[in-house]
């Protein structure tokens, strides 16, 4: 009986942890309308979550595009198929690398700052102060950040992919001297609007939900000590990254 208990307990604890996060998700989602009614806080959070990540995302996208183009060019030239370079790079970016790498960078940049900010508010009792002022911290603190995270992610992913395409253009045409017409038409040829671009954006939106949810949850429920804030920040990156990669596999197998 006791052995059975020690076997069942971790499972129950896992279910409870999942349930608490689901409750957190549903509460945040139901509070979105009240966030939209007071757009100022939301705009402010969009700045802290989105605008500050633009440089990182743009530079990241550019380098990934450069590297992809170089690697694909070397590989394709062995088959004499360098005319497909544009299409291949664009497909890789829009379907996979854009959404996933953006989400991972987002988890490291915006996710950690959300987690540590909320953890700090918890530790310095700002969340308690709101609570006793009869102001719901879920509505005032969590919901605007959550919505901002959801909206920022696809926009950032689009910037990432666009910069990646630019990077591959620089390598393919400026450096390797491919014909621009061939390069661009292979892209338009291979990439389908709905199946590739729209699905990539849907992926990115779902990563946005997961990433914001995990970071906010970890921060909001951080232990109210300096150590607790640090742990919450670390956990937010680790859990977000795993969730992004696992979700990516699931979504890819459903979508394509």
């Amino acid at each position, binding site marked *: 009986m006791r052995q059975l208990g020690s076997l069942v307990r971790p499972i129950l604890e896992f279910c409870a942890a999942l349930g608490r996060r689901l409750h957190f998700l549903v509460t945040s989602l139901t509070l979105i309308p009240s966030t939209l009614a007071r757009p100022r806080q939301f*705009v*402010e959070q*969009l*700045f802290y979550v*989105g*605008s500050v990540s*633009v440089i990182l995302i743009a530079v990241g996208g550019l380098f990934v595009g450069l590297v992809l183009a170089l690697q694909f060019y070397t590989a394709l030239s062995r088959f004499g198929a360098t*005319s497909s370079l*544009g299409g291949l790079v*664009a497909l890789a970016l*829009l379907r996979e690398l854009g959404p996933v790498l953006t989400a991972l960078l987002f988890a490291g940049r915006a996710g950690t700052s959300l987690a540590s900010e909320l953890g700090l508010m918890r530790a310095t009792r700002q969340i308690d102060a709101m609570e006793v002022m009869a102001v719901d911290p879920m509505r005032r603190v969590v919901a605007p950040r959550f919505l901002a995270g959801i909206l*920022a992610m*696809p*926009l*950032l992913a*689009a*910037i990432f*992919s*666009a*910069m990646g*395409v630019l990077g591959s253009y620089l390598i393919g045409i400026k450096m390797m001297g491919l*014909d621009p*017409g*061939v390069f*661009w*038409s*292979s*892209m*338009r*040829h*291979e*990439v*389908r*609007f*709905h199946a*590739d*671009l729209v699905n990539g*954006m849907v992926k990115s939106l779902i990563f946005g939900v997961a990433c914001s949810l995990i970071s906010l949850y970890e921060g909001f429920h951080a232990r109210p000590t300096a150590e607790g804030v640090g742990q919450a920040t670390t956990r937010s990156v680790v859990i977000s990254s795993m969730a992004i990669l696992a979700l990516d596999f699931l979504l890819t197998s459903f979508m394509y």
Partner: protein
Amino acid sequence: MRPIRTLEVITGLFVLLGVAALFYLATQTTNYRTYGGQSYEVKAFFNNVGGLHVGAPVRMGGVTVGRVTVIRYSMKRYQAEVDLLISDHYDKIPADSTAAILTQGVLGEQYIGVSPGGAPTFLHNGSTIHFTQSAIILENLLGQLLTHGGHSGK
């Protein structure tokens, strides 16, 4: 009047940048322009389609007006049958226009180039382009040059 806050301006710029990137990706890297929206379908028969494949653009004067949706072999006419989806924006293409399979650059993608004729009637959904010019096959061309004779394919 409320003062303009830098933070709000930057956030607005961020959203604009994101939307612009999305628009750029949609129009420059995908087949979005000829995919969505209203369009009509016409047929064309070719002796040889060469390396043409589904999704290839249909162009008039270099402007993409549609794309190839189906390529099959017609057992009635013993010719390749190609379905072209053309955007409704271009609904005044003369019925006697010519469709040719052309190559972009020396070894680039193949596409269908449409040159307008002079007929007062226009192509519509289900109509057929009668005047076609097949893909130029390099081997055939070389063969003809070497023998100094024969007739080029219509």
